[in-house]
């Protein structure tokens, strides 16, 4: 009975008795969720347009952030470093298309997936070779990111909201809106959707697949850069970030691989679920449940909806 009480009743009693702390937990879950969504967004972009499950998205986040910080440390002014990093992401996208994707046209999904794992390893080695392996701090203040925090006092308690987190959320909203407009209203966006729908049909109406791939990987690179800046400002820029990037997988699973709104909702579900479980139920199991809980949430979702919440139903034929 004691265990049942601890699982079913006690956490809610705690939530009720300290609503300010509960709000704080919710807020941190929300922020974590938006950042997960950002990483997942990069995956979705590439998966939609080329059917490649881009495992290297996580390392692209690290790589973009490292390039930015590395350039800044090398003496480049902050605004120029940003432009140069965007340029570097374009070069990366172009090289990936030229060297990897173009040669792997028409291969099975699993082969393309493996290729991105290879890319992942290459970028780890290359990044460490160029920028060194030690963690770096993100140039948050120079980037114009706010660093202070505001304290609210709801329910006679305190709720601390860091400005950086607010900035992260606003940035995520802007990025998602921009992508949505880009996908739905522009000529290139239409081409991207056409490619996502059917490669061959898109080719036959004169859309260049190679060009589209460069654009998509570049867009994913920009998303990676934004994610890298925000993650980097919250913690240091290091290669440990790529483990965080693996968290994008359950996010994608919940949302479905092909849906941008799905990525956002999935991110929020994981963010909230993880933080709440860690704080209120984690104590029963010993700490550190954050490491695997996201995957368990995703598994539970999958058992009921095998293609995620918003994923396209795949109709299989013999």
């Amino acid at each position: 009975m004691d265990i049942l009480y601890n699982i079913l009743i006690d956490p809610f009693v705690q939530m009720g008795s300290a609503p300010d702390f509960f709000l704080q937990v919710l807020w941190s879950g929300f922020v974590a969720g938006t950042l997960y969504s950002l990483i997942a967004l990069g995956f979705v972009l590439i998966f939609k347009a080329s059917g490649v499950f881009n495992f290297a998205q996580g390392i692209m986040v690290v790589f973009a952030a490292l390039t930015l910080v590395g350039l800044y440390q090398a003496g480049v002014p902050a605004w120029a470093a940003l432009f140069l990093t965007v340029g570097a992401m374009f070069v990366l996208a172009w090289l990936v298309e030229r060297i990897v994707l173009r040669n792997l046209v028409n291969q099975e999904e699993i082969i393309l997936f493996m290729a991105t794992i290879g890319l992942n390893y290459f970028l780890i080695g290359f990044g460490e070779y160029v920028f060194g392996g030690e963690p770096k701090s993100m140039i948050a203040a120079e980037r114009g990111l706010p660093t202070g925090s505001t304290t609210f006092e709801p329910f006679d308690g305190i709720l601390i909201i860091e400005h950086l987190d607010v900035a992260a959320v606003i940035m995520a909203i802007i990025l998602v809106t921009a992508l949505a407009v880009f996908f739905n209203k522009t000529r290139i966006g239409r081409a991207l959707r056409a490619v996502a729908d059917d490669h061959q049909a898109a080719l036959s109406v004169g859309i260049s697949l190679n060009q589209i791939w460069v654009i998509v990987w570049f867009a994913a690179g920009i998303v990676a850069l934004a994610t890298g800046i925000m993650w980097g400002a919250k913690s240091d820029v290091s290669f440990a970030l790529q483990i965080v990037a693996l968290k994008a997988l359950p996010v994608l699973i919940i949302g479905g691989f092909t849906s941008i709104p799905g990525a956002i909702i999935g991110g929020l579900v994981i963010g909230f679920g993880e933080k709440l479980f860690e704080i209120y139920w984690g104590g029963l199991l010993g700490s550190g449940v954050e490491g695997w809980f996201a995957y368990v949430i995703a598994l539970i979702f999958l058992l009921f909806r095998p293609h995620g919440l918003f994923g396209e139903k795949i109709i299989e034929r013999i």
Partner: protein
Amino acid sequence: MFYREVGQFKTNYSSDSQVFPILQDKIGILAMLIVAFVFVPMFGSEFFLNSIMIPFLIFTLATIGLNILVGYTGQLSLGTGAFMGVGAYSCYKLATIFPDVNIIIMVLLSGFFSAGVGILFGLPSLRIKGFYLLVSTLAAQFFLEWCFIRVEWLYNYNDSGAIDSLQRSAFGYIVSGGAASSVAQYFVVLSIVVVMTWVASNIIRGRIGRSWMMIRDMDIAAELMGVRPLYAKLSAFAVSSFYCGVAGALMVFFWLGSAEVESFDINHSFLFLFMAIIGGLGSLMGCYMGAAFIWILPIIIRALPDALGLDINAATVEHINFMMIGAMIIFFLIVEPHGLARLWQIAKEKLRTWPFPYS
């Protein structure tokens, strides 16, 4: 000229379906076994046995396990490291609870624990496929890693949180622990790996293996033809995890001597996936080649600067190593998506018609 089946007639079905139907192949395998069992322990140095051969064989075994799942059954897995961990920790517990039993029996028994865990985490595969399945194996990976830290009973409540290889003997020889000679350990590992490869090749050729491959090629069609996905998929998870578990137990008791949770982390899962891909998915020969390639190439790269008299610091070599492995994977996927095993097969085809390719 030397390698062709001309004149080797098959007069019954069993001779037609043997593992090595061609005489030259039989001779080749025999020669390799003789080298492995006689010459390597005779002439191999301590370093060669301990740092190259034993890990190579253990990794081969884990790669075979992974290949059964990914290459033969088509279920993508990133949980190899954790399944090896299950084997290692259960072997450790078994060896502490029953100190007098032959350690080899314990190693094999621990595979069954791993198989059980594998079946448990394989259950979602009945409902989800492809990349969606990755999340199930990743859940296994991270959850089990967490267990290896949090459940102190698993490492006998010691302070370091590591499991140490205990001194145990088999057939009158000390084979594990600090006092064991590397030749004895090599023989144990080699024998287990050779026997288990042989068993795997027969499982794969048999009814179970063929049902795995049917599931891989098209699961719906396989189901219509009478393959039960429940049995086929779960048996693949079980056999695969059994192999990984045995490899994990071997790794702790016959190679590392002491292991923490880091020895079973996600990076190792990736490593085995690379070995399986580079060697060739769906090929046992490929497992050996992939393991050799991924394990021995970095050793050569590390030794190269010294041999050439270049002064490069160790960190740089490590980074170059990463880049090389990444570039190699992409290169192989572009040139030959079916891995080293396929290259070997092409070479054999060429050899068969040499020197008259059009005859």
